[in-house]
């Protein structure tokens, strides 16, 4: 009788402990991408940085291009990295890895961006379909594609 009571009590304690632990660790919505874009620059709207003239078609005369990404619900420490690939699928440039939220607290959003110079550099001479791959903690999370063209019509 006594033995059964002890076993039942332990079972209930284990269950309660597991529930409490699991709740503490996992009951949050996951970090997700809210917006990602290629743009010619960034601007502030109501205190928040947003992409300026986002698009997929740009002129080779554009001064620079920015790869913009915005995450929601950031809880843990992460790293972000960008890799830019030319139309011939060669790695053109890769950013350093940057730490996101080293404090480990909850943040509504985290915005990241990386830019490359187009006008006056080698990229200007490589019109065609480019892609930017964004990595989070070493894992690819987003691929953005855009076209660089020497013809008129792209964003200046």
């Amino acid at each position: 009788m006594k033995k059964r009571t002890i076993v039942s009590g332990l079972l209930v304690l284990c269950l309660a402990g597991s529930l409490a632990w699991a709740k503490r660790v996992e009951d949050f919505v996951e970090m997700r991408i809210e917006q990602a874009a290629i743009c010619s620059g960034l601007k502030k709207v109501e205190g928040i940085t947003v992409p300026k003239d986002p698009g997929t078609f740009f002129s080779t005369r554009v001064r620079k291009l920015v790869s913009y990404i915005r995450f929601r619900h950031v809880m843990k420490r992460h790293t972000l990295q960008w890799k830019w690939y030319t139309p011939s699928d060669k790695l053109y440039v890769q950013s350093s890895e940057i730490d996101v939220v080293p404090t480990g607290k909850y943040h509504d959003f985290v915005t990241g961006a990386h830019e490359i110079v187009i006008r006056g550099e080698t990229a200007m001479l490589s019109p065609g379909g480019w892609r930017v791959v964004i990595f989070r903690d070493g894992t690819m999370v987003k691929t953005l594609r855009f076209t660089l063209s020497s013809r008129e019509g792209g964003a200046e």
Partner: protein
Amino acid sequence: MTRLPRQFLCWMMVLSLGAGPWLGIARGEADPRDRLEEGKLNFQDGEFEKALALLDGLAGKELGKKELDLRLYSGFCHYKLGNPEKASSEFQRVLELEPDYRLNRSVAPDLRKAFENARRQMQGEQVSEVITIRDPWIEVGPARKKMPKQFVKKFYKQWWFWALAGAAAAGVVLVVKSSGGGESDTYLAPTIDLSHRAEDCATLPGSYQAGKIDVAVAISRGEAPYTVTYLLDSEVIETQTLSGKSGSFTYPSVLPLAGGQCSNRTLTAQVKDKRDNDGAQVKDDETLLVCECP
């Protein structure tokens, strides 16, 4: 004809035959300037490929100031044939020859725009072999201790909740099954079984010699300590307290037994356990024939 004019004509013939190939007249070659004009006419007629072929053939020829026209129309042809890079290159050569050269308004707007773009590329926009690597940029939203409630997942929507609930349910079922099919109270009252050992009696089989009797009680279930009371008829002859383990065991005793004429006496053993101290007692009776043997 006099002798002098005849000699003059002969020399002229000789000279023309010798110098002809040098001047290109004998091979029928047109003046480069004429070919340039022909190319310009072809361009104006929309025959861009033909025009370009003619103009390309003039590359390296001495054209003087017309070199500028050659480059300009070559650029126009390339642009119209969908080669803006080559067009830009030709326009930039025009600008090298005459940096302030401007196209007049009679030229098509798209050609003027392409020409001006070439000028912009040329002015301080040299393509560098160096690739600028810039550091990434991060903007972090305000920090909070906890995620706002609307973003917190309900616990019952989590996989672990159902896994743990299943495990708990399985555990409860196992415990209930092992405790005896669903009884809520698993306590069972004690039972007693009394036995005695017959003494050899000369006269009456099954009788007992007065003095003492060996008995044994077998107790099972209940909770220790047990109290066993022995009664002869209704008189208590001994009380024993058996502490120790709960469960089934047999406890032997030697009881005093008064003698007399042969008579039936009833030996009763009663047991009560820890719980039954104030409750019903379990009894077990044995009928003995007790004699004073000779």
